[in-house]
């Protein structure tokens, strides 16, 4: 039964998954081209010097890509459920409601996780040949808030789409914008190191906000 729900989510998102994979790979490749260009034109030492002295990671172009991915995934997963209140079909399935929603949200989080981890691995493997571990971790840690923002985007868009009333949708969007803003407040290198794990845990917990929307849907709030 859980497998069937995953199957349904996969049918909704498979083309998007492909698109997001292509986008992430394309952006990663672009950033690596830029790094490669610096190395070939000015030498590796120049690249290292920039990384040591400035808050620059050569991956700034990726800043909003994970957020965009999270938002799109939530839209692709939950807009079809809310068109013509199709969510009723889902909630009528002979499974506890929390299991159904948990599976759908878990699918989304894991899909994002897979995309993001793959992106990190590609970046890490490429940089492994060019930079010292200190600098690789500096780049990866500086980028981490952007990826957590991807989960936050997913959480709040799902929360908003599943919400039955427009008034509350507006509130959810505003809260989401404020929460996501947090991940882009500081652009200094490694600024989020102390709290990023906590932010990730909190963000993943907030994915559960959708339960609140579904419970309001079930109460028929208008």
């Amino acid at each position, binding site marked *: 039964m859980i497998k069937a729900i995953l199957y349904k989510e996969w049918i909704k998102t498979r083309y998007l998954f492909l698109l997001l994979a292509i986008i992430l790979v394309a952006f990663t490749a672009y950033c690596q081209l830029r790094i490669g260009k610096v190395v070939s034109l000015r*030498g*590796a*030492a120049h*690249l*290292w*010097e920039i*990384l*040591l*002295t400035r*808050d620059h990671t050569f991956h700034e172009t990726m800043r909003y890509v994970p957020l965009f991915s999270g938002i799109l995934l939530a839209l692709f997963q939950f807009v079809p459920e809310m068109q013509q209140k199709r969510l009723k079909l889902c909630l009528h399935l002979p499974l506890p409601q*929390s299991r159904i929603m948990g599976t759908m949200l878990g699918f989304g989080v894991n899909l994002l996780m897979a995309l993001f981890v793959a992106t990190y691995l590609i970046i890490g493997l490429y940089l492994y*040949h*060019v*930079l*010292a571990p*200190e*600098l690789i971790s*500096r780049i990866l840690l500086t980028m981490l*808030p952007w990826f957590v923002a991807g989960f936050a985007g997913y959480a709040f868009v799902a929360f908003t789409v599943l919400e039955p009333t427009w008034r509350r949708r507006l*509130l959810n969007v505003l*809260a989401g914008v*404020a*929460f996501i803003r*947090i991940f882009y*407040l*500081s652009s*200094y*290198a*490694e*600024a*989020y*190191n*102390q*709290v990023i794990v906590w932010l990730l845990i909190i963000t993943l*917990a*907030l994915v*559960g*906000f959708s*339960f*609140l929307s*579904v*419970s*309001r849907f079930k109460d028929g709030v208008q």
Partner: protein
Amino acid sequence: MSKTYKIIYYILLIAILAWLLPWLYNLATLKRWSTPFTLYSEIIEDFAMINVNYDEKASRFIDRKGNSYTETQFDSILPMFYYRQLVTDNKLPDTIRGTHVTSSIIRRENFIFRSRPSEINMHHPGLYPLLESRSKRVDLVMPEDVFRLTKNGIEFIDMEVNQVNREKSALFQSVFIQKEVAFPVQTIAGNPTNRKEYDEGYLFTDNDGKLFHLKQVQGRPFLRPIPIDPEINISRIWVTELSNRKYFAFLTDANNHFYALTAPDYNLVNIDIPPFKPEKESMTIFGNMFTWTVVQSNNTDEIVTAVDAKTLAAIDSMTFCNPEKDKIGTASYLFPLQLSFTSTVDKFFYPRLKAFSCHALVLNLVLLVLYVVLCRKNKFSAMYLFKAVAVAVLGIFAFIPALLLKQ
């Protein structure tokens, strides 16, 4: 599950408001506090300052006693700072305080030193380029490698191939062992850039608190232990590389004393200024051959000390205080606390609660009464009680979301 998330959502909205409302308020009301640009004048032997009146967009040149100067007069009482203007006007005296001066002497002796908390409170990758300090070229060249300090040694990494240079690492490591450096290194400072006149490498303290000077001289390590009073616990170092070559570095110790390390004899001299906490306050030194004007400032105060350039003893000092310092602002009546994530004194992101105010309790109580009146038709529940307590404690931050989430 949804009940838990109801509470979580409420708490999240409170946090967002505790962050954004004070931010908006400060954005709308905060006036930037600025102090006059102040230097010690060797001529009038007092502080001279430029008081910028932002309303008139005009500058007033005055001294501490309130005497006014024209711009040209001001150049003359600060000849060491405005010497280039004086040279152009052909007014630079050839002796000041009995010492012969020329523009080139003044240029060599002048320096500006800056330390900002935000440059200290940040993550450093821990890789250090070590320049060749006695290269045969006129200009300094950035090296092809960087070193890292490990738990028990030093290691050079060749950047082009991204591999440890074992030979060079072993060479330096042997010198470190020979000079009895106790690993790991505690604090290290240098200016790894080729945009400077000369290179003095790095100064560091080892695990025992001993101070060392590290340079690369013709590819060979130069490592020199610097004997200092063992009572002095060095906490932070700035390699100066001033053009007069009189000092290797400025340093602070655990008791916030500020020192200069003289060159070439490695003497640690106390600079006679108030305690300096580099993590919290910024410092600017305008130095010349006679006096240093040391400016220490934080959010509310700015202390300016004139120090004798020869003895480093204080000559005079004055303090500027932010006039808003002890005033209770409207914000403290509105907000019981303020949440922010970033700061001007560091480059970190983490939640910071500040500006706790009990003056806001009055508003909190008013809002509590209003909340009870507005929700009088609701059934009494644990949630209602929770929200009421939140409004009483967190005031407006809890009141607005309580209304927004009302059924």
